[in-house]
């Protein structure tokens, strides 16, 4: 036997699991059971009428057409689908830029799965929920410390709902001053997350977009021109997804305050800033953290999650009730804000996703102030290392501030690669899957041509980064040597290239199995 050769870090032999697993309805075998259900006890049956009590017109005539499948087959089906999903646990997670996909510690999962967490009903008496209330209270305090804000609500269930939360706070604030009809515009930037525009628009705000200046900062002259008596707020991320930190942020927030508006900070990109700089000192009145990004709670395919919204003291009376407080002996819910006639209404049922807050709490306590700072520094170090290595490639570029550092991510452009080879960023994205790697382009529309957005976080090792870089180089090289093969990718993912021609056609689309059968059988 020869010595194992590990000189090529590129996983050319990779193939993702591909099970050709049928749609679950196709697994049905009449009579099979997945689980047995307990019946009402005999004495109860004798004393009750059961479903006979349902008024005739409300009775279900036919059993729902669910599949009938034995337990091992249901398990195998979903276990296979899990294998066909590229979670963070199994891959080098660098390619999902803007998503801050970092390691989610397993101990936090085990803690969140304890009965004293997951068997808690949200309406239990406060005396029986002191543990989770302490966690909610203390995490709130930590977020105040990390952001410089005075208060937080944990209700919003994700970043986008948090943006709605910020917009609701802004709306409430101006309503309390009788100005909600006049102050009906929110300024944001084209590089902001789509929800920075879409969620405030839902609250009735007109959206004004700023384009970047030559440094990638929001254009200050355009900003000044946009600010007027109708401006309610400026919603922005810093750094934006370009990874460029707006050095002039104080100029923006000060100008907005001078003109009576508020400043909302989309802190989806907070991971590179923990313990380095804070929202309040940068002049923001409200901000939010994604606990499923910056604070390590797993993304769960897209939730459950938490977008904790913070604010300065003058906005606190508008936060949705209840707020957890501590009277020196016990934790309790304060419903005072519910009485505020201008306060924002509740945004999510109960207290949001408390188990997600618990995971964030455990992560913070595993790191302490020094660890949070280290996470931010290492995330930025990883990103700038990646940035340097990729910018050495002649066909990779990144707009703005040449030669300067980025924060925790960067939006590159492969425009030159496209010009030279005909291979675009969407092709690279599909080809990277053949090596078990995520790769992300950008939100729409593409303002950076042929965008590539990478965010390494603090999780990958140097070896992981080098593997990702080597894989990208391998693929880039292929753009020159075998573009045809590259453009036909993926070859080693779960399925071949999609033909999405039917996805916008009402005659052809099928959002459920039932709709599919109606149209195709």
């Amino acid at each position, binding site marked *: 036997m020869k010595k194992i050769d590990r000189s090529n870090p590129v996983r050319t032999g990779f193939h993702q699991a591909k099970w050709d697993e049928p749609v679950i309805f196709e697994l049905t075998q009449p009579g099979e059971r997945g689980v047995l259900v307990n019946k009402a006890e005999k004495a109860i049956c004798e004393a009750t009428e059961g479903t006979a*009590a349902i008024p005739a017109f409300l009775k279900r005539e036919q059993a*729902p057409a669910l599949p009938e499948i034995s337990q091992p087959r249901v398990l195998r089906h979903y276990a296979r689908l899990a294998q066909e999903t590229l979670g963070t646990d199994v891959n080098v997670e660098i390619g999902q830029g803007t998503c801050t996909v970092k390691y989610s510690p397993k101990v936090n999962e085990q803690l969140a799965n304890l009965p004293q967490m997951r068997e808690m009903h949200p309406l239990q008496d406060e005396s029986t929920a002191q543990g989770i209330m302490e966690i909610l209270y203390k995490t709130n305090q930590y977020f105040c410390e990390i952001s410089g804000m005075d208060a937080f609500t944990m209700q919003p269930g994700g970043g986008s709902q948090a943006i709605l939360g910020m917009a609701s706070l802004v709306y409430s604030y101006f309503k309390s001053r009788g100005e909600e009809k006049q102050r009906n515009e929110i300024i944001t930037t084209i590089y902001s997350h789509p929800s920075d525009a879409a969620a405030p628009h839902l*609250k009735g705000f007109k959206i004004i977009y700023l384009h970047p200046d030559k440094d990638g900062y929001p254009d200050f002259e355009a900003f000044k021109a946009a600010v007027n008596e109708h401006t309610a707020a400026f919603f922005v991320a810093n750094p934006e997804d370009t990874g460029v930190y707006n050095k002039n942020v104080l100029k923006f927030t000060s100008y907005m305050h001078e003109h009576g508006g508020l400043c909302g900070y989309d802190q989806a990109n907070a991971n590179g800033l923990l313990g380095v700089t804070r929202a309040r*000192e940068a002049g923001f009145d409200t901000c939010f953290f994604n606990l499923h990004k910056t604070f390590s709670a797993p993304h769960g395919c897209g939730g459950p999650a938490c977008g904790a919204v913070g604010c300065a003291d003058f906005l606190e009376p508008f936060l949705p009730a209840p707020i957890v407080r501590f009277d020196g002996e016990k934790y309790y819910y304060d419903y005072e804000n519910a009485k505020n006639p201008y306060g924002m209404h509740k*945004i999510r*049922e109960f207290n949001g996703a408390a188990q997600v807050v618990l995971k964030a709490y455990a992560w913070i306590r595993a790191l302490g102030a020094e660890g949070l700072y280290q996470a931010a520094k290492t995330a930025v170090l990883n990103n700038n290392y990646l940035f340097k290595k990729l910018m050495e490639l002649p066909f990779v570029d990144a707009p703005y501030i040449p030669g300067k550092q980025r924060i925790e991510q960067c939006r590159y452009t492969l425009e030159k690669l496209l010009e030279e080879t005909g291979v675009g960023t969407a092709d690279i994205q599909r080809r990277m899957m053949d090596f078990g790697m995520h790769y992300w382009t950008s939100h729409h529309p593409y303002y950076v041509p042929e965008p590539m957005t990478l965010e390494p976080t603090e999780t990958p090792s140097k070896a992981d980064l080098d593997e990702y870089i080597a894989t990208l180089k391998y693929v880039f090289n292929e753009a020159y040597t075998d573009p045809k093969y590259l453009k036909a990718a993926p070859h080693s993912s779960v399925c071949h290239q999609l033909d999405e021609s039917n996805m916008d056609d009402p005659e052809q689309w099928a959002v459920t199995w*039932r709709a599919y059968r109606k149209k195709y059988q």
Partner: protein
Amino acid sequence: MSVKGFKSHPYIPNSVPEVEAEMLREIGLTSIEELHEEVPQEIVLKENMNIPEAFGSEYELRRHVEGLLKKNKSCADALNFLGAGCYQHYVPALCDEIASKGEFLTAYGGESYNDFGRFQALFEFESLVAEMVDMEVVNVPTMDYSQAAATAIRMACRVAEKRIALLPESMDPDKREIIRNYCEPDLDFVIVKADPATGRMDLNDLKAKLNAEVGAVYFENPEYLGMFEIDAQKISDMAHAAGAQVVCGCDPISLGVVASPRSFGADIICGDVQSLGIHMNYGGGQSGFMATMDDPKYVLEFPSRLFGICQTSKEGEYAFADVAYDRTSFGHLRDQAKEYVGTQTALWGITAGVYLATMGPKGMQEVGETIMRNAQYAAKKLAQLPGVSLRFADPFFEEFVLDFSKTGKTVTQINKALLAKNIFGGKDLSKEFEWMGECAMYCVTEIHTKEDIDRLTAELACILEGGEA
């Protein structure tokens, strides 16, 4: 004095000093302090954050958090009769097994190719829920029932091209607040009174409030107070006659035995799948859905992602991808898209799919039957206690309202006494529904045994006799 970081932390591989130094060298720096050069000094934090020092080990962290959680008394430690939107049902083992699979747990925004399983599992969620509600289109789950109701109402008003929605007085007050926050200032709401004697929607009041401006009439079956909406068909007919869309909420675990709201004319159905195999999680298990028929008039109004079957370049191979993506705020339209979309509760959607696939048609019928019998038994026993009565006469699914007004005790007093007996009494309605008097809403499901219910009855009897309160 600035912090210097935490070297060789297990979550941060490149915090190993030698590696850190080597990487810094590669980018021409000598210290991590030289990173963040773009952040102006005037806003750089000079002091340590006031956050407790890290635990020295995973064991100490675990002990600490376990210690905190031990201060909780959960529904596994006590006998629980709380419902009101969050329900204690049996969670089959497969649900926990799949929900904790690392691949699903830690996936996020991959593509149809490498997140194939996530797309398929969520397509199957849509498909399985569609069978329960007898509809053709269901979304990748939203935040919770309230969010689903709010979006459904917005969708309905867009379809109707009107801006007033009617809400029932007897609905969950918190849900009404959430709907308001989500829909104001675009929509206005008018409350339809409840008949204080029956708890039903007052049809005369509905008639008075329906007019050409009303875009949506919202109600639920079972309604918030637990009863079946006896007048569902009438409400639906009246709304349609006035040119309004009918939006109806439901609890999907009831739909093995109860007809889908589609059968009495709902145009958009919404609800929460927490009851389908998801632990309560102190409210963190909520997960909403909307459903419509496969009509572009409705489909194109969904703000959510809709995963559909897609063909691939290989003959005979299928995959899953976004249907009509450009309607979402992820597309090019941003603020001009339908509402907004983002991270919601996808893992609970997958879990609810596992639940429905595991239960099958028979399981869903049986669980509905068991729940109804247990709840009926409990209601019957409890209503026989002196001074206690059922506040409303209509049949119910798993929740019922007990009236304690004639017992001489308040619900607060009674629940406190029950808690001393390790029982979580029903939700106190006396604050939110003052007109009802001293009432509490009890929730009884398939997890309760006769012994549990008899114990509750005995303890309540004792408390009401005055011995224990």
